[in-house]
């Protein structure tokens, strides 16, 4: 089985959010998001309440997956960034580390050049945070970090979920 679990603790979450907030400010963006490649939102900053973030996460991941497939078809390892240009709003999508997707939504208050530059800078920092998350997850599996709250769920807990 691949590493099929991602555990995000308060500390790393805070650091991710801080670096997203910084990026959003530096890039004069409307909103910035980090998603997992499987389509789940990890963190966000900016005008996030203007968007259906769950749908954004799923469709962005689908977009990245399809683009990855296209790259392989022509013998490229990946297209590391994607850019969608609209009338008013634009998207910049890039890969951070191995499994995260960074989405920046921006308008005329910013520019593609600026977004690119700032994304490059904060990606380095975010990659580091993800590496540490991964390490912490591995330590948890070895029993050196707090165990998952699900280690002790009962059949009753599970059944209760479905008793609507």
């Amino acid at each position, binding site marked *: *089985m*691949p590493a099929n679990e*991602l555990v995000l603790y308060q500390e790393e979450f805070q650091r991710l959010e801080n670096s997203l907030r910084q990026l959003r400010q530096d890039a004069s963006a409307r909103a910035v998001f980090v998603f997992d490649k499987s389509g789940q939102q990890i963190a966000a900053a900016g005008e996030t309440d203007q968007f259906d973030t769950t749908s954004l996460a799923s469709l962005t991941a689908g977009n990245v997956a399809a683009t990855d497939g296209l790259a392989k078809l022509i013998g490229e390892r990946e297209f590391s960034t994607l850019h969608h240009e609209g009338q008013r709003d634009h998207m910049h999508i890039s890969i951070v580390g191995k499994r995260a997707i960074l989405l920046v939504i921006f308008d005329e208050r910013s520019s593609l050049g600026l977004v690119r530059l700032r994304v490059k800078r904060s990606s380095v920092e975010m990659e580091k945070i993800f590496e540490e998350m991964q390490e912490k997850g591995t330590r948890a599996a070895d029993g050196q970090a707090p165990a998952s*709250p699900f280690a002790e769920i009962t059949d009753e807990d599970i059944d209760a979920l479905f008793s609507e």
Partner: protein
Amino acid sequence: MTFINYASREINCKIVYYGPGLGGKTTNLQYIYSKTAPEAKGKMISLATETDRTLFFDFLPLDLGSIRGFTTRFHLYTVPGQVFYDASRKLILKGVDGVAFVADSQEERMDANIESIRNLDENLREQGFDLQTIPYVLQFNKRDLPSALPVDVMYRALNFKREPTFEAVASEGIGVFDTLKAVAKQILVELRRQ
């Protein structure tokens, strides 16, 4: 991929509905969507062709309540069933936690069912998963049709590890939630085991 978020106290899992084209995968999701309270569901997204055939995927986010103070959220996806969409199917299996296989009970779709399970096995393997061990349930859909094969015949042909199996008429909602619950349960039990 199971995503446990201690900061927002959420747990997110991904379930994929797999099976041959026109078997009723999208119909399963539509029924779940129609029967779920507005506050427990997000928008259902369908990337479909003009004729309503699934082109890339359907997506439905669902909150099932909470366990030990963690909001439990399932992301439901369907794949396009037609053979030539194999590249898309592989993409949707990325980070999957559990699979519900929707088989078409009509006799003339039996070969398509078998081919689709074989295809699932292969595509899971490519993503580093194993059909033998991944949370998995089987649904015999379209039980209302006159050409539906007897259940025991289908069971012998399609069930390969005594996975939970449900009869369904997805267009009327029969068996739809049983199927979802069974796969969700297996995922949570798996989470406990890890």
